[in-house]
């Protein structure tokens, strides 16, 4: 493949994955700037592997795997500093009226918080299934788990969220 073709493939196939990768990284790092750096590093790695592209079964799965691993590396380094709870990220929700905006903002904040409370594996599976809309097979590929493990993680995540919703409904927790 000529360099022009590789560049075209990069623009058309890899670069459009940036938003999904960003959200995956964000679920792990919980920090926008960190997540952005992770996505950029992922893209650069993929470019450096350009001579092996033809042997790769799924570029998207590989991108997600690399992105996930880079994000985990970073967040482990950050863990010592305990930057887990930084709520300034959920700021630009746009709805019709200020009141709506406040309510939506508040509700989204709650969901965001519930997802954040989940263990990392469950959080990632939930993100890929419920927000990115991926099949169990795709998720299993990307996260290096079996489909069975993916289903178990998703089941636990959804049960946990259901339970937390019940708590909020019953006791206002």
């Amino acid at each position: 493949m000529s360099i022009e073709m590789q560049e075209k493939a990069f623009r058309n196939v890899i670069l459009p994955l940036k938003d999904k990768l960003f959200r995956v990284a964000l679920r792990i790092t919980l920090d926008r700037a960190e997540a952005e750096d992770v996505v950029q590093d992922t893209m650069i790695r993929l470019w450096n592997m350009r001579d092996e592209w033809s042997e790769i079964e799924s570029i998207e799965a590989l991108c997600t795997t690399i992105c996930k691993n880079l994000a985990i590396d970073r967040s482990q380094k950050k863990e010592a500093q305990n930057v887990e709870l930084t709520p300034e990220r959920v700021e630009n929700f746009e709805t019709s009226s200020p009141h709506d905006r406040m309510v939506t903002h508040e509700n989204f904040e709650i969901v965001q918080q519930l997802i954040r409370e989940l263990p990392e594996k469950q959080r990632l599976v939930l993100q890929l299934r419920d927000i990115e809309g991926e099949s169990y097979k795709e998720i299993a590929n990307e996260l290096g788990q079996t489909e069975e493990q993916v289903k178990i993680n998703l089941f636990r995540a959804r049960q946990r969220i259901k339970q937390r919703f019940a708590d909020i409904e019953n006791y206002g927790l």
Partner: protein
Amino acid sequence: MDYKYIEQLLERYWLCETSLEEEQILRAFFAQSEIPANLMQYQSLFSYQMEQPKQEFLDEDFDQRVLEAIHVPVVKAQPLTLVSRFSGLMRAAAAVAVICLLSGAAQQLFSTSGNVASYKSAVGSADPQIAASQSATSNKQISRVAIADSVRASTTE
């Protein structure tokens, strides 16, 4: 309106028995404005699933940064001007010129100090009075010749 179907879907959603399509139906349902009270509490969960991709994304500046990072020429690159194209060459030429100038100046400096010394040895030792008298006698000789010439001219007339 009967919400049995949605309630069933929701139950199966918690148990991870729904397909991707069925989960999409749930999201579409909760995006409506009219939702029965008993289901209202889950609205934020499903609308969050729909909204998050619209809230969290990377802009075009990111593309630029990545493309620059992998050294792919960016589309809006500046055309090369004649000056910038030769700027490397110019710089090399300037360096050579500076070296030439410096060596020339150095040479000049050393050779002039040599000249001064030889000038001093030649002129400094000579007696100015001798020089003056020599020029005086030569002046007399010239005037003598001139007078002789004018005398000869007047006698032939």
